């Protein structure tokens, strides 16, 4: 039972354009969401997060949007750069179970020069 799903295994965009990565979840108890980025042969690194009391959070070129009614979140990268090419994982957490993260399958983003 995949509670967090990233339906697009891969995404290819041109440098300078917007990258939009999507994530859907089924458990309405999730109240905190995170995005991690992973380069080959490295561990995932934290990118940005959002609490369920917000619908948007920005950090530089990265913005995460949360639509609770649709149980959907998205990560926008503007403008995309070749160094953004990586696998992006979304993750979700239930507040009462603090430390347990549920991850999606990941989306491979390729930014072409």
């Amino acid at each position: 039972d995949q509670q967090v799903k990233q339906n697009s295994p891969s995404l290819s965009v041109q440098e300078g354009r917007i990258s939009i990565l999507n994530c859907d979840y089924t458990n309405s108890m999730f109240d905190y969401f995170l995005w991690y980025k992973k380069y080959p042969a490295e561990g995932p690194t934290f990118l940005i997060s959002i609490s369920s009391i917000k619908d948007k959070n920005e950090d530089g070129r990265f913005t995460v949007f949360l639509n609770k009614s649709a149980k959907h979140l998205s990560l926008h990268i503007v403008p995309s750069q070749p160094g953004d090419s990586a696998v992006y994982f979304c993750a979700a957490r239930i507040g009462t179970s603090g430390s347990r993260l549920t991850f999606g399958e990941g989306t491979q983003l390729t930014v072409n020069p």
Partner: protein
Amino acid sequence: DAGITQSPRHKVTETGTPVTLRCHQTENHRYMYWYRQDPGHGLRLIHYSYGVKDTDKGEVSDGYSVSRSKTEDFLLTLESATSSQTSVYFCAISEWDKNIQYFGAGTRLSVL
């Protein structure tokens, strides 16, 4: 890598042999985690620890055991490795349960 060292980085072993993976941290964080990453599944939590000698199961704990005798070390043991345990294993740490988790570089394990 936030002061996290995983060893070994690569291991090839045979079915039925015991395997121990080590995670060492220099951050003095209370929480430590073991995940496995497999195609089509993302990262899945195996076990985690919330203090010395305090551990709990994750969603895919069958076939794995853990131990934490010191704050800085968290060991993952496969008592009798199976081919289905071929995977990339990541250790993570966090200062408290709701803090961001920071990951090590991973251990690639192949069970033949």
